């Protein structure tokens, strides 16, 4: 039961981002190619090493495409104007917008064309459309899931939560859905995971998501790593370790930062000066670099799990500086309000002002900041683990898994499924941060949207 739910969910984890970043990446590449051609590089200078790029992007054909696009845009607008008898929509449409519509239509056609083509090559090996197809499936599935979840939210709960769901964009409901899934995976990891996170099986390097004939194994749907540990189980335990540690770190950072920030805002004077200058100094060093430095220092004192704890404290302290900045700014904005002046003149103490007057008015920005901070901490920890300096073994953790399995990307030329090995844990990280960011984005828009 558990596996049947988890497998498709995890299998499709990353693919939306794959698609989206893929499109962006290609755009960037074309732009760069154009710049190179126009600005500096005559063709003669290209060496044989660069031939593959020239072959694929091909001479000047993109200019022809661009010209076709322009003609298409112009025609689209003209036809629209003619057919609708100059409705304002077409009448006032700038050329660039018309171009945009045509470009979008072309893009959709190309995507559908490739999608249909992907099935014709299914039998052959290797299936170069595998990721494209998965991405599209995931995109469609997740949109459907998000919309269904939103419908569900509109029907249950109190009147206010229903209203919340009604006004929610699909991205935010997708984010909430994903966060719930992760929370369940993290909390119930030992129950969901089919195997232990450290159990080593005799058969290493089982390929994920392929039939047995091609080197897969239904008992290990996502395969095993180089020393024979079940990747699915490690992914699920990774939710517990990676997410849990990031969460603890963020809470700690928030405790430090918010306390300091509000104290600085209320007391001002030298308290504010001292705290702010201290934070200025700490923020003058980029966060990842600073944490690497401190971890170097800490590694002479601790090892293993002790080092993990040291890392938690280090990142919490470094991140609390950002929280301090924000909560001080938020606090300052509230402190200048007349009702704070009224309570000052009444003779209220610092505690009353922070907890009863300021904090209730700062929950919205602080909550949003918590989401963003969590993402940042989560990504920092993942990066550290990826560099081998974060969460220490034996704990299963996504960053470390990516590091260990990274080389398999290059085997995708033989069998695309190989690339799943590093992409699954990396995608698991990306999906959660994307989800949190979607929710935070919506929250921020809601609080600022009242003004617009």
């Amino acid at each position: 039961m558990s596996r049947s739910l988890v497998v498709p969910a995890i299998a499709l984890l990353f693919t939306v981002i794959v698609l989206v970043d893929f499109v962006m990446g290609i755009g960037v590449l074309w732009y760069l190619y154009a710049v190179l051609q126009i600005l500096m590089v005559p063709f003669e200078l290209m060496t044989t090493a660069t031939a593959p790029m020239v072959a694929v992007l091909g001479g000047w054909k993109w200019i022809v495409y661009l010209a076709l696009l322009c003609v298409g845009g112009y025609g689209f607008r003209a036809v629209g104007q003619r057919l609708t008898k100059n409705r304002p929509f077409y009448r006032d449409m700038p050329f660039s917008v018309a171009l945009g519509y045509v470009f979008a239509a072309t893009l959709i056609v190309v995507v559908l064309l490739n999608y249909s083509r992907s099935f014709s090559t299914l039998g052959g090996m290797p299936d170069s459309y595998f990721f494209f197809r998965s991405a599209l499936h995931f995109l469609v599935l997740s949109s459907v899931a998000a919309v269904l979840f939103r419908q569900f939210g509109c029907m249950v709960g109190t009147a206010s939560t229903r209203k919340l769901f009604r006004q929610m964009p699909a991205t935010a409901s997708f984010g909430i859905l994903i966060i719930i899934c992760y929370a369940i995976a993290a909390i119930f990891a030992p129950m969901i995971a089919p195997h232990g996170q450290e159990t080593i099986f005799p058969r290493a390097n089982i390929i994920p998501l392929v039939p047995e004939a091609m080197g897969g194994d239904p008992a290990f749907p996502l395969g095993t790593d180089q020393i024979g540990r079940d990747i699915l189980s490690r992914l699920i335990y990774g939710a517990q370790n990676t997410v849990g540690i990031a969460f603890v770190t963020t809470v700690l950072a928030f405790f430090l930062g918010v306390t300091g920030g509000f104290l600085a805002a209320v007391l001002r004077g030298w308290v504010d000066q001292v705290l702010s200058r201290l934070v200025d100094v700490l923020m003058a060093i980029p966060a990842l670099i600073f944490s690497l430095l401190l971890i170097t220092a800490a590694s002479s004192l601790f090892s293993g799990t002790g080092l993990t704890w040291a890392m938690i404290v280090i990142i919490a302290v470094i991140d609390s500086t950002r929280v301090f900045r924000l909560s001080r700014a938020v606090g300052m904005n509230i402190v200048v309000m007349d009702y704070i002046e009224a309570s000052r003149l009444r003779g209220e103490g610092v505690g009353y002002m922070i907890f009863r007057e300021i904090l209730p008015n700062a929950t919205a920005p602080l909550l949003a900041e918590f989401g963003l901070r969590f993402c940042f901490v989560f990504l920092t920890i993942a990066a550290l683990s990826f560099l081998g300096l974060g969460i220490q073994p034996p704990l299963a953790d996504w960053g470390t898994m990516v590091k260990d399995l990274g080389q398999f990307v290059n085997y995708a030329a033989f069998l695309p499924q190989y690339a799943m090995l590093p992409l699954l844990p990396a995608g698991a990280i990306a999906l959660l941060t994307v989800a949190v960011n979607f929710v935070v984005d919506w929250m921020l828009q809601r609080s600022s949207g009242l003004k617009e």
Partner: protein
Amino acid sequence: MHPVLRITLQRLALGVLTLVIVSFVIFAAVNLLPGDFAQAILGQGATPEAVEAIRNDIGLNDPFWIRYFDWLGALVSGDLGVSYSQMMFATGMGGEDIQLIPITEQIAPRFYNTMFLAGLTAIIAVPISLAVGVLAALYRGSAFDRIANITTLSSISSPEFFLAYVLTLFLAVQWQILPSLASVTPEMPLFERIYTALLPALTLTLVVTAHMMRMTRAAIINLLASPYIEMARLKGISPIQVIVKHALPNALAPIINVVALNLAYLVTGVVVVEVVFAYPGIGNLFVDAVRSRDIPVVQICCLIFASAYVLLNLTADILSILSNPRLRHPK
């Protein structure tokens, strides 16, 4: 004195002060903690006498302040010291007469490589993100804006190594347009160098573009609510002109900040990306040094990253002062 000049000089002085404090923090972070680096150099089997000799040699027995000022003084005169791994190598060979390679020589080519990668990324990313940001602000609320929003949000949220592997998968493995390892060498011609470094540059571009585009969009939308923009529209100025003539000059300061902030962010991002693509830059060196606890190298790399960060922020600060009409034309 003209206020712009005065404020600029103030900021410059503040920047220098920050750099000194940062150097102190970096030095203190690794030197105040217990733990014997002489032992680390020699390994477990070393005799106490040998350890003591090394300690004296690299000055570990001096008081903390003296060591700091010695280090700072050497830094200013361009002497970055010798890495522990070189010393270990030397002690392994058993002689003082072996020529040690100073850190300066180790770092110089890598520094150039990292700057090259960051520069390449900036050249690709800055124009794209500004253009897309302005367009998204102009057509805010449209499908284009929403798709750009979702795309950039996903891009920002993803860890660099995820983007790196996705791009590798498609561009290097499946389509085979670009090489998957960015092993540039000093003798490569420029175009080939760009080509080789393109995959890491694209990865960084994705992250940085997304940031810059969102912040540009936000800065412009923020301005579009101002009464003077409404005034411009009510004067019959076309939407593009409104953005270019009325919004952009005022958005200059925030946009400069966005660009500088993201170039500063590149400093951090470059570490992970260099490791993924085995790019021979400072980030890679830094991570290796951290793993082997090679303190002199860690300190120097850290200082380079921090200086780049401080200097970029300083530049942004000064440029946005220069772009402020209130400061340029005092009453």
